[in-house]
């Protein structure tokens, strides 16, 4: 039996449902031994579910798993490890205040007394480090190591447990470009030693530069398998996003007026110091819908949260409705609502509503201090319910029962309730994240029409969505985010999937955001000299 003839991993007709969600639909996959195999797909395409099945976290409803030619059923991850599979999670599974050595032997200590196991492990790890070029100080504590080295420890840990097949879930998400380069160099060394690598990512650039084969998932299905040398970023982007029925939205030409929001050189760093938004500048004008396209996780969440005052920006400034916000002078979300900025959050369960609360209480979120609902200190229950009933009838929320627990509404109706709450108070600026995620077709049309109505009433709408169809049919102008930067600006009338896909993968020449900003300022209105220098 020669090495190249065997498949390291063979998945046959893997099927997995979570209730109504068909997370994996008859997924087949063959990974050649000693290759680097990429799996790409948007968030929610089913990549993580598939890998969890392979690693024994979930069990498939149907289908077969073969590892190195042998059939397996994994009921927990120990069995997968025993079969030679190692996994490096996106979020590391390391004990922060343990040393590297202690972390590696965790789970395979080798007896009640640590000393023997430690000595043996030290020897083996030194060998592994030499063979694969995975140099790391075994006695350093994890919290003293940079993220790139912590990841290296994860890889060592998997190899130490005898992994012949390494699965890496979004490994570069937390790495700097230099650390990424280093990781890819390690991939090469591993490959040369016959280790098979499965790389799960939505970064097409990385797929093209390191993998041998690539498989594309969309909506729970494997839609394509390609040899990396025969494909392109452009094709992969198209495959990932897919072509769906373009929902037609009735809309007149936009009657664009003065800008209501000016975002200048906005930067947002997360707790780890990674730049989630980098130098983002744009204007949002009355009477238009500005679409923000991009593969999920490229800074859209941070954009919405920074603009609505939920998170603080690191630098830059935002002028909105006559107020200016910057790193030193934040505007709180409640103040934003008062001045006329409403926000429909991307994740309705995490932010949009409180699932334990009744619909009438969820319909109050963000507006509980409204004098119209309070009489003195009393939060007037009748008015709270009337408010909810009015919202429910305006947006056709079913069932129209203000007492029903928020969790018991369907996704579409929850979303309509949130949209009603944010839109019915007639804000001047509306930020909307993923308005139709998990919403049925009928409701989608209704929601799109409401957004267009807002636009026609002279309001400014910022629409963030990972659905390209939605972006193209609802927006008037589109900006594209990739890695926290604006990598494309285009009028919706000029946009097609191909161009947007290229922009989303940052395959076009990057556009200088500052220059574009200046162009816009010059063309739309007289800008003060001061602003030009910002």
């Amino acid at each position, binding site marked *: 039996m020669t090495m190249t003839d065997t498949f390291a991993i063979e998945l046959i007709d893997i099927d997995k449902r979570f209730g109504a969600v068909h997370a994996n639909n008859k997924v087949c996959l063959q990974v050649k031994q000693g290759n680097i195999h990429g799996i790409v797909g948007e968030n929610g395409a089913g990549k993580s579910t598939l890998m969890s099945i392979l690693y024994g976290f979930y069990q498939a409803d149907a289908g077969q798993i073969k590892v190195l030619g042998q059939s397996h059923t994994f009921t927990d991850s120990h069995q997968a490890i025993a079969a030679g599979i190692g996994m490096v999670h996106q979020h590391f599974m390391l004990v922060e205040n343990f040393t590297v050595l202690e972390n590696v032997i965790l789970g395979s200590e080798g007896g009640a007394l640590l000393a023997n196991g430690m000595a043996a492990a030290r020897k083996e790890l030194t060998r592994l480090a030499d063979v694969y070029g995975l140099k790391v100080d075994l006695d350093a504590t994890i919290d003293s190591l940079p993220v790139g080295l912590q990841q290296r420890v994860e890889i060592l840990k998997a190899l130490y447990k005898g992994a012949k097949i390494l699965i890496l879930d979004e490994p570069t998400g937390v790495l700097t470009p230099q650390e990424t380069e280093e990781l890819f160099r390690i991939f090469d060394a591993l490959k040369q030693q016959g280790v098979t690598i499965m790389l799960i990512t939505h970064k097409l650039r990385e797929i093209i530069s390191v993998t041998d084969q690539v498989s594309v998932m969309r909506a729970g299905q494997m839609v394509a398998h390609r040899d990396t040398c025969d494909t392109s970023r452009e094709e992969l982007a198209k495959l990932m996003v897919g072509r769906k029925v373009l929902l037609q939205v009735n809309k007149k030409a936009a009657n664009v007026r003065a800008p209501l929001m000016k975002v200048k050189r906005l930067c947002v760093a997360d707790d780890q110091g990674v730049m989630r938004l980098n130098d983002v500048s744009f204007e949002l004008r009355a009477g238009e819908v500005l679409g923000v396209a991009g593969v999920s996780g490229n800074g859209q969440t941070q954009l919405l949260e920074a603009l609505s005052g939920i998170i603080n920006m690191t630098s830059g400034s935002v002028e909105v409705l006559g107020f200016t916000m910057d790193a030193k002078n934040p505007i709180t979300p409640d103040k934003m609502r008062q001045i006329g900025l409403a926000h429909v959050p991307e994740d309705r369960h995490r932010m949009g509503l*409180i699932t*334990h609360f009744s619909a009438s209480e969820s319909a109050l979120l963000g507006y509980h201090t409204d004098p119209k609902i309070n009489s003195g200190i009393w*939060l007037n229950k009748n008015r709270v319910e009337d408010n909810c009933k009015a919202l429910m009838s305006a947006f056709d929320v079913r069932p129209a029962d203000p007492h029903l627990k928020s969790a018991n509404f369907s996704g579409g109706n929850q979303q309509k309730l949130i949209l009603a709450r944010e839109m019915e108070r007639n804000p001047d600026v509306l930020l909307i994240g993923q308005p139709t995620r998990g919403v049925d077709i009928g409701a989608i049309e209704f929601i799109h029409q409401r957004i267009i109505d807002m636009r026609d009433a002279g309001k400014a709408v910022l629409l963030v969505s990972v659905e390209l169809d939605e972006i193209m049919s609802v927006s008037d102008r589109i900006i594209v985010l990739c890695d926290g930067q604006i990598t494309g600006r285009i009028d919706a009338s000029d946009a097609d999937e191909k161009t947007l896909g290229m922009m989303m993968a940052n395959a076009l020449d990057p556009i200088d955001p500052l220059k574009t900003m200046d162009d816009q300022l010059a063309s739309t209105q007289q800008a003060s000299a001061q602003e030009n220098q910002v």
Partner: protein
Amino acid sequence: MNRDTRIAWINRLLLPLLNIITAFAVTAVVFWLIDVNPIEAAQVLLYGAFGYEEGIGYTIYYATNFIFTGLAVAVAFHAGLFNIGGEGQAYLGGLGAGLAILLLDPSLSAWVFIPASIIGALFFGGLWALIPAYLQAYRGSHIVITTIMFNFLAASLMVYIMVHVLRETGQMTPQSELFPTNAWMPFVHDVAAGFGYSIEASPLNMSVLLALVCAVLVWFFLWHTRWGYAIRATGKNGSAAVYSGIKPKRIIIVAMCISGALAGLVSVNELVGYQHRLIMDFHLGYGFGGIAVALMGRKHPIGIIMAAVLFGILYQGGAELAFEMSNISRDIVVVMQGLVILFCGALEYMYRPWLIRTLAPVKQAAASQEVATEVGA
């Protein structure tokens, strides 16, 4: 009855009931092991708690303390905070109430003294909770750790103050001088006598009314004001609260101060209502008991009142038991209380999966829906 209503009833009524029955069943085994007839013991206990007027008075008197601390723990719970500093807050509340009375002119009327002592108890109890709250909100120190440490700080502080500052002149016992009689919270039997009813004397005083008023106020505050809304929103979903513009730091401070203030009121019942002087260790057990009361009462004032009465029964009936039966010491109360806490608190949901499986079985479609939401979340 649809499934949601059934589950609601299981959660609200059946589960606490089964938990208590289990606790009593295990208590019965303990009695049987120490050669006490459990049925006889139960009779003595119930007679002690309900059999005569004085017993009833004691039961309600103890329950009053548990209502205060139960409400205190519940308010913090609703904000997503676990206040286990009720002991210290109650103790410091006593200092507040005592100082308010001792520093005022003894000739003043009860209309001044009683409100002043209540305010003193609220203020000092709240203040003692404010420090851990501040540390949690602005310094990230975990409230469970700080509140429990503040119980010890309170105990030490009070020893110092009682021995060196407030001890009655010429006395060796660390207790303050007697409060002036017009500073005493009226006893219920005295008030009843005023209306022409004759009740046996007991420590039960008008603080019980204060406890009921507090229960109503807490209910109103949490469910019928915008501040209560903000507290509950923060406790249920912190991210949604931040999204809505609620400031979690402020919520921590407000909820903890209210919680501490309510715990402080224990001293009004104990000191202003019964002991009539500032003494040591009047608060022992009520702060921790309040946690069990709040959990058993499902964090709702009505449930808390019911749970507090149960604990009052255990306290008073247990004392009677120790008095009547030679081979039982007063510590049996602690055992019973411990078992109730074990089954109603720690093992709160032990029967839940089984109850739901048998009484509210899932239809197939509904089941998959639930899994989907869990995965989605």
